[in-house]
């Protein structure tokens, strides 16, 4: 099969999930066609056909087949383009642990961070607590490595993209300060390494645009802070 056959990505400019797929494609040097889906306005017939179950982006289309769910897509890319820029370790146990941390960052940490900023008032204190705990585990796991993947960006770094970039902007927009340099010096250093990477920075959505989006969608909670 000719792997150079056109890859398409259906995505959303501001979505960390969507960007994960683009980051990995770019890191591996895989050319692709990007199609913007403005899911908040209207879900296109194409999206509904390619992802009928979840009706969400990102969706990857390759060799006539479509795949949904950002981390499933990333693993598919890893399994298909095996020679450039490995995202996962070789050893089965190390691979499993990388997947564990990727899921942890994606599932647990991301959702608590989000809810800590913009969740219902009644839950916010609990979410902030949980967010601290989650970040502490990640800080420990990162240790003195440049990236979670070691010397190069790996699956966990990609899964934690929200924490590296979007969350800082969310903190500014909401006024909730959780991930500070004092509390999490290693994560802070890591997020700077991540967003400054030559390939990653090409993919990240512009800060001003995200800030405006967050403020418009969620308002500013600074006045609600005790």
């Amino acid at each position, binding site marked *: 099969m000719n792997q150079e056959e056109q890859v398409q990505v259906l995505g959303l400019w501001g979505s960390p999930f969507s960007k994960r797929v683009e980051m990995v494609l770019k890191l591996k040097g895989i050319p692709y066609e990007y199609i913007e889906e403005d899911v908040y306005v209207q879900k296109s017939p194409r999206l509904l056909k390619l992802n009928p179950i979840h009706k969400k982006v990102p969706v990857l289309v390759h060799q006539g087949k479509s795949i949904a769910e950002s981390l*499933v*897509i990333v693993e598919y890319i890893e*399994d*298909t383009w095996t020679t450039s820029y490995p995202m996962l370790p070789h050893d*089965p146990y190390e*691979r499993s642990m990388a*997947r*564990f941390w990727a899921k942890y960052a994606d599932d647990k940490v991301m959702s608590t961070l989000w809810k800590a900023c913009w969740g219902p008032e009644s839950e916010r204190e609990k979410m902030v607590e949980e967010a601290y705990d989650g970040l502490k*585990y990640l800080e420990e796991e990162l240790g003195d490595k440049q990236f979670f993947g070691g010397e190069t960006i790996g699956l966990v770094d990609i899964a934690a993209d929200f924490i590296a970039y979007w969350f800082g902007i969310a903190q500014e927009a909401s006024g909730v300060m959780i991930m500070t340099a004092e509390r999490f010096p290693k994560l802070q250093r890591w997020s700077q390494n991540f967003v400054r990477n030559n390939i990653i920075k090409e993919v990240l959505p512009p800060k001003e645009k995200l800030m405006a989006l967050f403020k418009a969608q969620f308002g500013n909670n600074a006045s609600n802070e005790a």
Partner: protein
Amino acid sequence: MTENEGKVKLLGCWASPFSRRVEMALKRKGIPYEYLEEALPNKSPLLLELNPIHKKVPVLVHNDKILPESHLILEYIDQTWSNNPILPQDPYEKAMARFWAKFIDEQILTVGFRSLVKAEKGREVAIEEAREKFAFLEKEVTGKDFFGGKTIGFVDMVAGSIIPFCLARLWEGMRIDVIPEDEFPELNRWIKNLKDIESVRECIPHREKQIEHMMKVSERYKLA
């Protein structure tokens, strides 16, 4: 070969579908293991030591490697012991297996258990919502003996530990039929096929015991 030998221990719970699916995989591949039962909801010091982050079963210990999370354990087992493969080789088929496994644990379990038990909009609505999700699975298994094709695979173990035993027994306790045979002939055929597989049959919890357990769990969940 030597790497694959060595002790395998599984920390699990008899009623947990997540734990049972790991046992299916170990049995399917003929891997001997020591089973340690966790008397949930109490969490033993061993569990807290092995899985401090999530504090959940199953946890697999292989030599000195500790691994939580059933999907991760299944993939690890598959990569470490290559007989009777669980996941497909083809990258697309593998991606689809992972997609369905995620869908089943996140969506099917949510509507099949949580939404149904809470029934915020009423039981009939909850059942309808559940059926909409099951319809996707019905389509996926149509024309196949198993989700994995001719033999059981990753998705069969994930779905097979939840639907025919865990959820079916909850539904039995609630006296409802969420996937009746006339509406879901393929899924019902798949369930029959599953019960013919020894490594699956050996992992089915005792029926009455599980019905009782599921009713208790649903009461606890309703009050939470």
